[in-house]
């Protein structure tokens, strides 16, 4: 690779205000998949970030952008790692145009800090990935992180209206803009979201916002059979009801969430949680109609949640998607029940433990598997779970795993016929390979 010593010397000389951490304790703490960086760089402004990248470009040093580090487990083992560039000091909400329902924030602000500021004007960003206190906007966008509320509000691609990025040569570029509707030029926002820092570093984002709902309630239901639970999900999705989230928990996940929150959740069977937002009259009617449908599908009534209990419950549900070994399988909604039955039988046969949480209305199943150490059983299970998801027109990504396991199996799965198109984009955007390679799909 490049001339690392000269890079650090140039950095210290030209950007004396930029923090450059070189001590071994720090480097150890910032290791990615057991690979320690040789430096951690913490710029305090967009311009500084751009200058760091320009120097990295000049000295051919590889960079890995980092936010709060909550989703750093996503991706394959990096090919090499010279420096981590951490954006947590870019933490300002630059503008909140409340009357326009838009805002502009720096990438290093945590989601929780952003939400607190937006809430003072009765608004929020309708994204609810796990670990809001640590996760930064930039990290959330780079990993395309989402949560249960995506059923109603969509994901980052539906809420981002503009981005400011540092390109691989250190130039600052904008895409999109500040207005909610915009088709001028290519929609590069889509390209950067979920690109895991392989094309550019996101330094600022403009969002479309939503008003905070007048009220929120959660309805909990229990089912002996997963097929009945999913039949109810289909019935609700095919009705006029508009839940904000529909989450399906298996017994193990329900036990874990009960332990974490102190709520009493059934340890056997499947729990369905419906989140409703809006006016109280509309919420009550939706809950009544959901209960009515639920009875027809063999549900046992659980309790309703609101206030602090409700918040704790959803917080725990989100956290349940980030275990030691967590897979995210996407599939058709109608494939979920059979998929979970398949996974249970498989885990039983291979002596693995499993906990499952599904965004049931969006076709996304998170599976946590134990033990996470490499074994032929685990590799077999992952292979078959992936194959099964693909048969449901979906895919399986191993979002979190021990490094040893990542060396045995591709966390992203096989590439598709569109991979050469992705390669050509990476080649154009980052011909020198400044942004760490090896972590994204197909080794990009």
């Amino acid at each position, binding site marked *: 690779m490049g001339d690392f010593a000269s890079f650090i010397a140039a950095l210290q000389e030209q950007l004396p205000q930029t923090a450059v951490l070189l001590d071994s304790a720090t480097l150890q703490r910032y290791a990615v998949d057991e690979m320690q960086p040789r430096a951690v760089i913490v710029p305090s402004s967009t311009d500084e970030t751009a200058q760091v990248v320009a120097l990295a470009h000049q000295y051919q040093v590889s960079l890995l952008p980092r936010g709060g580090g909550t989703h750093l487990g996503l991706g394959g083992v990096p090919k090499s790692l010279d420096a981590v560039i951490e954006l947590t000091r870019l933490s300002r909400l630059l503008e909140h145009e409340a009357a326009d*329902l838009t805002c502009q924030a720096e990438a290093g602000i945590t989601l929780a800090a952003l939400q607190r500021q937006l809430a003072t004007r009765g608004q929020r960003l309708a994204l609810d990935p796990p670990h809001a206190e640590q996760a930064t906007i930039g990290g959330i966008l780079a990993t395309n992180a989402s949560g249960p509320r995506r059923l109603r509000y969509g994901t980052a691609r539906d809420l981002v209206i503009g981005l400011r990025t540092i390109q691989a040569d250190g130039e600052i570029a904008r895409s999109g803009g500040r207005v909610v509707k915009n088709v*001028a030029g290519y929609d590069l926002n889509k390209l950067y979201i979920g690109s895991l820092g392989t094309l550019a570093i996101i330094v600022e984002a403009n969002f479309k916002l939503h008003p905070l709902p007048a009220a929120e309630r959660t309805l909990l239901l229990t089912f002996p059979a997963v097929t009945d639970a999913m039949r109810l999900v289909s019935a609700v999705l095919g009705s006029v009801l508009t839940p904000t989230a529909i989450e399906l928990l298996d017994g193990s996940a329900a036990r874990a969430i009960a332990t974490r929150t102190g709520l009493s959740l059934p340890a056997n069977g499947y729990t369905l949680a419906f989140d409703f937002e809006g006016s109280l009259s509309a919420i009550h009617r939706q809950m009544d109609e959901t209960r009515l449908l639920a009875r027809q599908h063999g549900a046992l009534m659980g309790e309703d949640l609101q206030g602090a209990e409700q918040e704790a419950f959803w917080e725990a549900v989100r956290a349940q998607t980030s275990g030691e070994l967590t897979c995210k399988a996407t599939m058709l909604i109608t494939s979920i029940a059979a998929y979970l039955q398949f996974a249970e039988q498989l885990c039983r046969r291979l002596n693995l433990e499993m906990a499952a949480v599904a965004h049931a209305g969006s076709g996304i199943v998170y599976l946590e598997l134990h033990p996470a150490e490499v074994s032929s059983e685990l590799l077999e299970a992952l292979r078959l779970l992936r194959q099964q998801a693909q048969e449901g027109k979906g895919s399986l990504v191993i979002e979190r795993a021990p490094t040893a396991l990542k060396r045995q199996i591709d966390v992203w799965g096989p590439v*598709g016929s*569109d991979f050469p198109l992705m390669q050509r984009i990476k080649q154009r955007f980052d011909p020198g390979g400044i942004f760490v390679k090896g972590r994204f799909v197909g080794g990009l």
Partner: protein
Amino acid sequence: MSITELPATTARGSVAPPFERLSEERKASVVRELSALLGERYVLHDPYDLMLYEYDASIDRSRPDIVVLPSSTEEVAGIVKIAARHRVPVVPRGAGTGLSGGAIPLYGGIVIAFARMNRILEVDYENMRAVVQPGLVNLHLSNALNPRGFYYVPDPSSQRSCTIGGNVGENAGGPHTLLYGVTTNHVLGLEIVTSNGEVVEVGGWTPDRPGYDLTGLITGSEGTLCVVTKIVTRIVHLPEEVKTMLAVFNSMDDASNTVSEIIASGMIPAAIEMMDQMILQAVEADMHAGYPLDAAAVLLLEAEGLREEVKDQTERIVAICQHNHARSVRIAANETERQLLWAGRKNAFGAVGRISPEFYVQDGVVPRTKLPYVLRRVSEICARYGLRVGNVFHAGDGNLHPLILFDSQVPGEVERVRQAGHEILAVCAEVGGSITGEHGVGVEKQEEMALIFSPVDLRVMQQVREAWNPEQLFNPGKLFPRPGRCAEVKQL
């Protein structure tokens, strides 16, 4: 797999491709090959047949050399391969309702018309997906879904004729995108033909596919990256209740302040459309939608969802209208009345055709709070150029559609219209807006791209085209600023 070898980056600023018009001899041999592939019937090449394909709904025109009507993805791939071998540009075309010249073949070449690829291939109600061919008319999809209680959301005003393929190309919007988003928010997967004639699937039926979001990148790329041959869309359940309101105002300011106040109050109605006096008069003369003739502006507002929410929202909207001095607020009593109110809005462009030989539509977007200021500036600009202007637009999104009336028979008028249009977009850019909200850049707003994007921003975008369409085989000469204009201005 190795990274493909790519030609060197084009120098900044020089984006005009080196296409020359086909000689008769070359054209004949391309026609021969295409006829062998598609059958002679589906290869048009004499000037009389081609005339229909030289324009869209914008004011530019340019004649193709050949028009082909394929019936399958394989045929499209074959056409692209022939074109690539002969270095003849390819421009995909839906119904030709575009407003920015996206389907105009600037350098001639081959236009692929999708009229024969117009089928709904699959509908899965339980998983809420439909798979369609690009030539399917937008409204035909919702019409097919309605009996089962579902619909396809994006509803451009031209939805009776425009195609879903064209909608994907332009990332089309419509009145109901305020709450539910535009085309890109409803497209999950595509089948495309690349510039070397390969058929590739991007995205799919399920969300969050590993890898770059190429579906999102291609949607709105105006046919400059690939040719779309199949589309996987989201479909949604029809709302339980819809209430449509017509609020009448004596001043434009009151109407625009109402829009700002509704959004600021934390409400996102399904639609907020504004029409000014000139539009109201044109529509009434055309079709009697029941609009008041003496009002300065009306707002067409729609609340939809659960009946409790609709009731609540309707009450709040009416209160805000009254607070902003609405002369009256009429609520459509039934579906017939509702359809009539909308018919007036959706046919507004056509109605204006009755009072002016030609008109030029702009598509700027501004932050919603800037509407009153920008509308005043639009009037000033048009007055200064001695041009009449009407406004009919998606006020809730801040997406303006000033219609500038003109007559190209009047010497110099076309240039004045272009100048006024440019100034209007400059105002939109100045207040932090965009030069296009749903019509696309095409040929019409290439220069204006520089109003909102820096040379670096534009260079980064061009990297995508260089990566996928390096020879500019697809829709050359569009989207980015270029030195000179090639298309002739439409002469009536």
